[in-house]
C-alpha cells in the first residue's frame, strides 16, 4: 500500500478515483431513477466530436468535449420536451452525429495523437494537477446543485406531471440535472474513456437500487459501490497488466452480478428484521 502512495502519479490517480467515483455514483442515483441510462452513453460518444474538434483546433480537448457533453445533455432534454420526441430518439441522433464528427475530424489528423487513445479508453495514471482541479470544481458545483434541489429532483424523477402541477420549475431544474450529467461524463472520460464511461454512471445506481428499499440507502450504497469500483480497478491495474478503465468497469459489473445473486437473501434478511 505504502509503495503505491510513494508515486506521485498514483497519488493523483487515487485522488481522481475519489472525485470521479463520488461524482458518478451520485449522478448514477438520478440516472437510474429517471431511467435515462442511454443518455450517458450518448453524451460520452457525442463528446468524442468535441474532443476531436479541440485537438484539430489546438484548443484544450477537455474544454471542447465538456461544451459538447453539456450541450448534448441539455439539448436532448429541451428537444424531447418541446418537440415531444422521446429522449432515446433524440440521443440516438446526437450519438451518431458526435461519433461521425469525431471520426471525420480524426481522419484528418497527421501523425500519432496519444491523447486521443487516452480519451477513448481512459488513462487515469496520466491525470495532472490541472485535471484534478477541474474534477474538484465539477464535484463542488454538481454536489452543491444536487444538495440545493434534492427534494425537487426527487419529486421530478418520481412523478414529473405531479411536480409540474405543483408549480415547480420542472424544466430548468431537470435541464440543470442533465447539464450536471454531461459534466460528470466529461470529467469521467479521463478515468475510463469515452467507450466505457456510461458504466460508471449506470452500474452504481442500478446495483444500489436492487439492494435498498429507500432512496437514502440507495444513495449511500451507490456511493460505496462507485468508490469500491474506482479504487478497486486502480489497485488491480497497478498489480496486473490491465488498463485501469477496463478494470474499474469489470469490478463494477462483477458487483452488479453479485447483487443479483444476493438479492433474495438480502430481501429475506430485511423482512426478518421487520
Amino acid at each position, binding site marked *: 500500500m505504502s509503495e503505491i502512495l510513494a508515486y506521485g502519479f498514483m497519488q493523483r490517480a487515487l485522488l481522481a478515483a475519489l472525485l470521479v467515483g463520488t461524482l458518478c455514483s451520485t449522478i448514477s442515483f438520478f440516472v437510474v*431513477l429517471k*431511467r435515462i441510462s442511454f443518455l450517458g452513453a450518448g453524451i460520452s460518444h457525442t463528446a468524442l466530436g468535441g474532443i476531436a474538434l479541440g485537438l484539430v483546433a489546438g484548443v484544450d480537448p477537455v474544454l471542447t468535449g465538456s461544451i459538447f457533453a453539456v450541450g448534448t445533455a441539455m439539448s436532448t432534454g429541451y428537444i424531447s420536451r418541446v418537440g415531444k420526441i422521446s429522449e432515446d430518439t433524440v440521443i440516438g441522433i446526437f450519438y451518431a452525429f458526435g461519433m461521425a464528427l469525431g471520426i471525420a475530424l480524426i481522419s484528418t489528423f497527421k501523425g500519432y495523437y496519444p491523447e486521443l487513445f487516452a480519451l477513448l479508453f481512459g488513462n487515469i495514471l496520466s491525470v495532472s494537477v490541472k485535471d484534478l482541479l477541474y474534477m474538484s470544481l465539477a464535484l463542488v458545483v454538481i454536489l452543491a446543485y444536487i444538495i*440545493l*434541489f434534492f*427534494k*425537487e429532483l*426527487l*419529486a421530478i*424523477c*418520481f*412523478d*414529473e*406531471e*405531479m*411536480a*409540474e*402541477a*405543483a*408549480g*415547480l*420549475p420542472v424544466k430548468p431544474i431537470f435541464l440543470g440535472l442533465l447539464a450536471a450529467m454531461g459534466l460528470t461524463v466529461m470529467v469521467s472520460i479521463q478515468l475510463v474513456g469515452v467507450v466505457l464511461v456510461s458504466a460508471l454512471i449506470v452500474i452504481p445506481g442500478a446495483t444500489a*437500487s436492487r439492494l*435498498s*428499499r*429507500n*432512496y437514502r*440507502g*440507495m444513495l449511500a450504497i451507490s456511493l460505496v459501490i462507485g468508490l469500491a469500483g474506482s479504487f478497486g480497478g486502480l489497485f488491480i491495474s497497478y498489480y496486473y497488466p490491465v488498463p485501469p478503465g477496463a478494470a474499474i468497469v469489470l469490478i463494477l459489473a462483477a458487483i452488479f452480478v453479485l447483487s443479483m445473486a444476493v438479492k433474495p437473501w438480502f430481501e429475506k434478511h430485511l423482512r426478518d428484521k421487520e
Partner: protein
Amino acid sequence: MGELIRAVDLGVILGGAKVLEGITFSVKAGELTGIIGPNGAGKTTLLRAILGLLRICEGELNVLGVPDTSLMDVRPKIGYMPQRQSFERRFPLSAADVVAVGLLSPATVLRKITDKDRSIRAALQSVGMENYAGRPFKELSGGEQQRILLARSLVRQPELLLLDEPNAGLDFPAQQSFLQLLHNLKHEKGLAIVLVSHDLVSIASSADQLVCINRSMHIHGSPAEVLRSSHLHEAYRCQFDYLSVGDKRGADCE
C-alpha cells in the same frame, strides 16, 4: 355555497388544434363532479386547464375566485392526482416520502418545509393509512398506492380536489373502497371533488353531477339526467339503452 369552479364556453387549443370548445359547467363546495367522455375527449386537458397548466383560448374560467390568468396563485389550494401511469412504480420511496412530495411548491424551493411530519401524519390519517408511513411504496397493493397518492394530494389541505381516473386498474372492491373514501372526504371536509372516470356506473352512483364532454360540451346535470340523455349517446357514439343510476345493464357501442 359559492362556486369553486365556473367555466363558461371554455376552449383550449393544443398543438394548433382546438381540443376543447364550448365547455360550460360549475362546481360548488362539498360537491362531487364526475367528468365523463370517451378516450381522447379532452377530460385530462380540462383538468390541466383548471390547474392553470394549459391556457384557455376562449371563454371564461374562474377557479377559487380567481380568473384563468391568475390560477398560479390558487394552485396550493388545489389537490391534484394525475393518472396512475404518471409515476414510477418501482421508486424507492416510503409512503410518507410520497406524501411529502405533495408539500412541494415554488415557495418551498431552496427552503425547508415546515411542519412536515405533522402534515404527513394528518394526510395519511385522512385516508386511513396512518400505519403505513414507513412502508416502501413500491411494495403496496394498487388500492393502497392510490390511497397514498390521494393523501399526497390532500397534504396541503386543499379546497378543491382534481382526480384523473384514480380507479383505473383497480379491482372492484378497491374501486368501491376508494369511492367510499372520497364520499367521506366530501362530507367530513366539505371538499369539492372533480373526478375523471371511465366507469359510468360507479361515477353515476357517487357523483352529485356529471359533465359529459367529447371535445365539446354534450351535457351537464344530475347523473340521472345525464345517463338518460340522448347527448350521452352522441358523445360516446354508443347506444346506452339500459344504463341508468338504478339500472346498470350495459351499452351497445358501434
